[in-house]
């Protein structure tokens, strides 16, 4: 009997893994790095996948979780300064404050994980429960609470980025 290939038709899987990773650690080069590493490891363990253990996306997300943990650990060890964007203007910063991804980054790690699994990787509550070793009901309750906290953060008033009268640096003035 031919074992199912978990990496057949990889494009949708790549998008779901990337969305999950980006919701966890932010959109950009780090998420690309972790996504690439996830599939490198998946390639290595391709033949060990068993359909009885669940859908390929759940298997891949399990790998991605470990890659994220490794990447975070490496980042802490290196304390490498990240490339930052040039300072923006007040309006752009205010808009960014309301940006969903930015708000997600401010959530508790466990909330971010749940929301990333549900709305990034598109896993069902049952699949999330299998991945995290929790009951489906518990996952649904936790998701509901995480959404509530996210909504609270999104609806919170934005804080002025600088006191009145302080000129903001613009590109080229440094």
């Amino acid at each position, binding site marked *: 009997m031919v074992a199912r290939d978990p990496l057949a038709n990889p494009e949708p899987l790549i998008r779901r893994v*990337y969305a999950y990773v*980006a919701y966890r650690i932010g959109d950009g*080069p780090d998420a690309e790095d972790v996504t*690439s590493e996830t599939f490198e490891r998946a390639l290595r363990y391709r033949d060990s996948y068993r359909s009885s253990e669940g859908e390929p996306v759940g298997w891949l997300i399990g790998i991605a979780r470990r890659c994220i943990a490794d990447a975070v650990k490496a980042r802490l060890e*290196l304390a490498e300064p990240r490339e930052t964007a040039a300072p923006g203007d007040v309006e752009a910063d205010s808009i960014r404050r309301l940006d*969903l991804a930015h708000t997600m980054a401010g959530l508790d790690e466990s909330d971010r994980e749940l929301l990333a699994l549900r*709305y990034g990787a598109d896993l069902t509550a049952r699949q999330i429960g299998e991945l995290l070793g929790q009951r489906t009901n518990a996952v649904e309750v936790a998701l509901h609470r995480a959404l509530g906290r996210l909504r609270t953060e999104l609806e919170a008033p934005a804080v002025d980025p600088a006191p009145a009268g302080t000129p903001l640096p613009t590109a080229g003035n440094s």
Partner: protein
Amino acid sequence: MSRFWQRSERQLEARLRAERPMPRPELVEAVARRVGPRPVLSGSKRFAFAGALTAAMLGALASVGGISYAASAARSAAEVVKKAVAPAGQQTAIGVFGINSGGDQYRPGYGFGDPNRNHTGPPGLERPGGAAAPPLRTRRAPDGKARLVSFRIQLDEQAALRIHVLDPNGRPLLLSQRGSKVGAGGISGPQTKTIRYTVRVPRSIPITLRIPANLLRAGELYQVRVVATDPSGQRTELLIPFTA
């Protein structure tokens, strides 16, 4: 009130899905290409792509239709095998020469030159943002004796990297390996005009170069030159401008 919160929650769920981060098409293409089709099965036997395969086996491989892969996947598989078996006439002996500065740690299945980790054609080497990315700026090293320049490159197959920094006249500058980083860790060695690194795992790679401060003039435009050579000897060069 309960219906209000339910509607509010559904709206937030819709927003989370609609604003889901999307990967760049280049990343999807690079990863999908790297994943490729699973090594083809023939009956109960499994083909191994590493090692020499005869022309007769290449034909058998292409004719296997019992696996649910598109014909194009079989053609790609044949091309990969062809690359492995046909010694390239112009192939340069690459080996693993590039580890005098650093390199990815060896892992089973990631030997340099493994055809499963490489493709035909020169290495895909690019910087996020591509040609439209703004020039980098250096920053002061903690000890004040050097400037650091950091960036990322995206590599889609195994390659030996050679990294230089060129002055405005195109001359390579001396670099400090200690304090420079390629990938997850630092590199070692004396000062050099060429930093070498062997990439066994194609991916996005962070790089930081340490340049003695006395070699740079403020406001001048310099370039990082990255040359990637794959196991078959094909090369790609990337130039990244920066200002001191």
